[in-house]
């Protein structure tokens, strides 16, 4: 039986409900940064070949380990996504990078991982949290600074606002060339 996924719990499902078209191949290998309880990783793992899930908190990763034993194609990694050299040897080359981290330097972390692991022609998916970058500024202004920072290295294909499901959140899809 097919499992139903709620858009309030997963940002990828919310973006797809708003009209973002993400094409996953069944052979793709995915690097997932900030995989908390494994709700969205299990959604991605059903469509792709293999998922590397990176998580920093030792409490939350207990739930992720149980999910990975159930699914079979998720590899849990207990590491800091800001230091990609610490899990350098445990990850292979990757077709998709997905990031969902509430940090001030989330764009910097995303670019670090994209440079190291993403193959040429791969897709990068970034969930932008405007309030965790700057609380006082206008969220649409913050989003434009993120866009200009990404455009130096990557080609932006599409972006969507996740309005009814999440406040001040955006999803960007970009391609490496």
């Amino acid at each position, binding site marked *: 039986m097919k499992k139903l996924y709620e858009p309030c719990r997963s940002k990828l499902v919310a973006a797809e409900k708003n009209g973002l078209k993400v094409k996953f191949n069944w*052979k793709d*290998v995915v690097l997932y940064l900030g995989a908390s309880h494994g709700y969205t990783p299990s959604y991605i793992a059903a469509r792709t*070949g*293999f998922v*590397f899930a990176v998580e920093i908190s*030792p*409490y939350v*990763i*207990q739930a992720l*380990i149980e999910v*990975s*034993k159930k699914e*079979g*194609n*998720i*590899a*849990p*990694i*207990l590491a800091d996504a800001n230091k990609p050299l610490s899990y*350098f*040897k*445990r*990850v*292979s*080359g990757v077709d998709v990078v997905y990031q969902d981290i509430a940090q001030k330097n989330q764009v910097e972390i995303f670019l670090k991982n994209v440079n190291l692991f993403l193959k*040429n022609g791969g897709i990068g998916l970034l969930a932008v949290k405007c309030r965790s970058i700057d609380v006082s500024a206008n969220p649409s202004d913050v989003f434009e600074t993120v866009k200009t920072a990404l455009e130096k290295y990557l080609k932006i294909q599409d972006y969507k606002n996740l309005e009814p499901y999440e406040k001040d959140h955006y999803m960007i899809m970009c391609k490496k060339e």
Partner: protein
Amino acid sequence: MAFCLTMTTYSFENVLGKFNFTPKFRFSKKKGRIIIDKINICSYKEVLHSFKKKDFFNGFACANLLITAKDLDASADNDYFIRETVKQLDNLYKAKNPIKDKKLCVDLEEAIFEKESYLERLMEKHCPNLFAVADFYTASHLLKIAGSLKKLSQMAARKIQILGAESAFFKFLTSPERKSPKYGVIFHHQLVQGSSNKGRTARLLADKIAIAAKVDFFKGQFIGDKLRRELNEKVV
């Protein structure tokens, strides 16, 4: 995944092991695409095929699971897990309290039951004597406020009695008119709730808890039943 170029071979290191390539294995760029030179086909085709096989990625899953299990033991101990679950349980109790309709909070009750059963299993393994003497609620909250079992075992019984009522205790120290508090978290215990003289039972309970915590920290035998029996005789 590390490429390093030496004079004779390309070596390639991973969790799964070391991979070596032949010296004729080369990459060349044509119109932006990477194309492999057609030299020595048999050797590198096998290597490239093995990267796409299912066994290769199954190896990744098994190796990463083993390493994360090791990292979990190294980075966090049982005290950390107990503190985190108690924090989350308190939030769940707060969310459940104002809802009076029982049909609405079925999911909440399920989540609470899951967390409670997980905590009970942890406590029976980590501190069986403390769990037997103090009940589920008081034992977990004492550990949360103290920080760890080591700190709780080094406390005096009088301090354990007041744990959780710090603000009342410091008001007593500053102003002479107030009286000192008789109980903190211990107040929620079954024996204290039922007794007529609550100050006396709280004092007796704190004594037994101090003994039980010390036995647990140095990993002695199980004497929780004996301590609980003595308490029941004294209170009644």
